[in-house]
């Protein structure tokens, strides 16, 4: 039998200071970069490299039979009256360019009565770029696709994206609280939130574009990451029934170790699928696949290193405060009795830990 981890006895919780410290450093690095970029705009960058979905503007994908140099293309686009275009050759397909044009502001309002049907929503950048491309000869250049989003729509999408992410986190919290306990839910959600922050931080550091698909990737991560935590929590729940005398600290370590090979294999397999997506998925999906790639790495780490320790620490605090409350606990015998069936009471656990 080919086995990855055999009888591992790693004291994960013992290393909690190191892990939590590392997590904080990672989060601070990402958030610090974002803040720094937000404040000082080095090289014209911003906190996040937002795509047109969230910032407004136009992206045009164009393909040339005989591709010109980026400089020639840029000057042709400027001649057509489009300023600040960012031209980016597509890496894995020669002759293709992504031309990104920021929101140009309201179109010239010189004669509003003349053209009441004029759209002030999205910019007319597409038609202007179309003219620029025509200068390279008939049939040489072709517009493959465009994405244009107005400023209003993009700010709506931005709000929506943040709302969805937070709603999903709350949904997870409620579900885990329902299946396990509040503390479990909270620790899993804190761990996931940490992954989301670290991933966003990396996106800020490397200035990878954030678009709608990245939000989809982040939400997938939320689900995927919570999955990992649930597998461990499930095992903790089971082990607490089996080993009544063992402390929560040891049970958690044991459960993490018992599920370690599953955690690593599954993450590894998803990682393999995502790597194939990064390699072959094309330019459109690259930010999406990169978000998943980073998220899966950190998601695996944080279930082991973050969710467990937080949960144990929290339960311990609750147990000690329950004990401090002393007689009050016995005021709710029914609740205690119920708890004793499923899970040993916290006070009892704390006693065991001593």
């Amino acid at each position, binding site marked *: 039998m080919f086995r990855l981890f055999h009888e591992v006895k790693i004291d994960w919780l013992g290393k909690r200071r190191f892990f939590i410290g590392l997590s904080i450093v990672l989060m601070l690095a990402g958030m610090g970069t974002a803040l720094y970029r937000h404040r000082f705009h080095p090289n014209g960058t911003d906190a996040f490299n937002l795509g047109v979905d969230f910032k407004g503007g136009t992206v045009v*994908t164009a393909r040339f039979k005989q591709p010109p140099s980026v400089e020639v293309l840029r000057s042709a686009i400027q001649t057509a009256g489009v300023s600040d275009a960012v031209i980016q050759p597509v890496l894995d397909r020669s002759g293709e360019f992504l031309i990104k044009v920021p929101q140009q502001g309201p179109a010239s309002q010189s004669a509003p009565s003349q053209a009441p049907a004029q759209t002030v929503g999205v910019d007319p950048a597409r038609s202007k770029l179309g003219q620029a491309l025509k200068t390279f000869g008939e049939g040489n250049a072709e517009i493959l696709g465009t994405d244009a989003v*107005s400023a209003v*729509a993009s700010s709506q999408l931005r709000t929506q994206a943040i709302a969805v992410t937070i*709603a999903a986190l709350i949904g997870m919290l409620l579900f885990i609280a329902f299946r396990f306990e509040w503390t479990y839910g909270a620790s899993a959600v804190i761990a996931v939130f940490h992954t989301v922050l670290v991933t966003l931080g990396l996106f800020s550091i490397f200035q990878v574009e954030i678009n709608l698909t990245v939000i989809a990737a982040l*939400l997938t991560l939320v689900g995927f990451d919570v999955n990992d935590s*649930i597998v461990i929590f499930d095992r903790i729940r089971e082990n607490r029934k089996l080993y009544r005398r063992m402390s929560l600290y040891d049970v958690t370590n044991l459960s993490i170790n018992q599920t370690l090979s599953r955690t690593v294999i599954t993450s*590894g*397999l998803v990682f393999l*699928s995502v790597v194939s997506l990064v390699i072959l998925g094309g330019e459109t999906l690259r930010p999406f696949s990169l978000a998943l790639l980073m998220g899966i790495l950190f998601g695996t780490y944080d279930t082991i290193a973050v969710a467990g320790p937080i949960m144990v620490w929290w339960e311990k605090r609750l147990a000690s405060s329950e004990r401090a409350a002393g007689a009050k606990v016995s005021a709710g015998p029914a609740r205690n009795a119920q708890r004793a069936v499923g899970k040993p009471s916290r006070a009892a656990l704390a006693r065991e830990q001593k």
Partner: protein
Amino acid sequence: MKKRNLLQRAIIIAIVTVVGLYIVVGPHGRRPHLADLKWSGIKANLANNIHLGLDLRGGSHLVMRVKVEDYLKRLTEDSAVAAQNAAKDSGFEVKEAHAETASGSYRVLMTISDATKVKDARDAVQKKVDLSDNSGWSFSASGATMAWSLSGAQQKVLGDSATDQAYKIIDSRINAIGVAEPTLQRRGGQNSHEILLQMPGISDPEHVKQLLAGQSHLELVHVISPPSPQPAQNYMTKEEAIASLNGGGNIPANRRVLPYTEREDLTTTPEQSANAPKPKKWVVVESPAIIDGIDLRTAQAVQDRAGSDKYQISFSLKKSGADKFGAWTGANVNEYMGVALNDEVKSIAYIKSQIFDQGEISGNFTKEQGEDLALTLRSGALPAPIEYSEERTVGPSLGADSIRSGVRASLLGLVLVVLFMLVYYRGSGINAIIALLLNMVLMLAGLIMFGATLTLPGIAGIILTIGMAVDSNVLIFERIREEMRSGKTIPSSVEQGFAHAFVTIIDTHVTTIVSSMFLYFFATGAPMIRGFAVTLALGLIVNLFSAVYVSRTIFIWLLSRKGRRAESLSI
């Protein structure tokens, strides 16, 4: 293990597999024939059965926003004029009336000379103009100034109905243009005023866009001028026109100053007329218009004269409009009337005799311009201008590229996962692979059955599902290994492994399905993302069948062949 139980399971699996396969690669809506079994037949059927999203098949995705604030502004302005006229008609001395529209507040303000008559004036106005409390206008007065303001709730109601009206008009325009398989829907909540239009196959939507947003607001207006035979009064500049009103630079509420493009000399060639700047003049017209575009019955583009390449629009009015128009023209013989299109006077003519329902707009249109204009006129005037807030287009070659890279990435992911499972779990790896393939087939079948669209992020969802689907098998297999290590017999290890892992699998699946539900319900603005959520959720639901039920059946079958003496299991 009971033989009957096993047989029953095998039959269920066989039926599900065959049905699933048929849904995915079988012909729909006709009887299958032998050619369907060929590779090319399978490919053709697959392509027929799966709804590809716009990002894969090519097309445009447009989001329009109805500018309801413009609609409400116009409504308030019209009400102000009507209120002033109504008060004057009832014998009140109106000092001044105007509309005040700023940042979400719409108010009609009117000042009369006698503050004691405010109540009577209010009654007189509200008898003729719909400014009552019931229609959402709340009245207040201070001194001789009366104010009606439109309530927030009513603004919502009116905005919503304007959006609905715009939706219907856009719908009829799309049908008139003849776009194939369009999807038109109102998007977002009640207050979003957004309309989503998807047009597969159209990767350059410029022309359609112009047609849909075409305002084509047609009015027949009374031009303020001495009557014929004097020539129609016009002015060289706007300032001159305003000065003629003696309003001290202000335009009274019952007048409008509009540009007037004089009809060019028909003897010039089209090239000359296109190059020569059109002489623009200004005219003063009465407000409100005699007839609004809403009263239009038909409109056609017709040649100016036989053989000409210039077109004009001939239109006729509906009954209600014709009555109004007939009454007005009957009473105003020799007065000048103008045809205004989008707040620009296109032609001016004097009334020779009473006219009822026919008219022309001559504007030296080309054939295409004329037809486009007639189309937008026929479908009715949009209640408010629309703007495009999102425009996404995908050309057919980009879509094909995306499919190719998506399929390649899926296959690579599948191969990597399959290899790992075979190496790591050996015999049982085959079990997992069977489950995984069945998972793929059933997921596609589910997509087809629900008529869901497969988008590029949807393909990414499939790839992710490959990874997550084997997770169930990994959980089960790892658990079986553990049970075996703890010294249990093989049949009981398998039993226990499934039983324990099942709880975890349900928990993990439900969480992921919950998060994809959030994606689905919140991503109203992004059909692409919804496609992703649907594939992911479907993949996980069928995974319960493939990874738990089917895998388990395979184990039962393996163990039943070995009988009670089962001492080894390739896992």
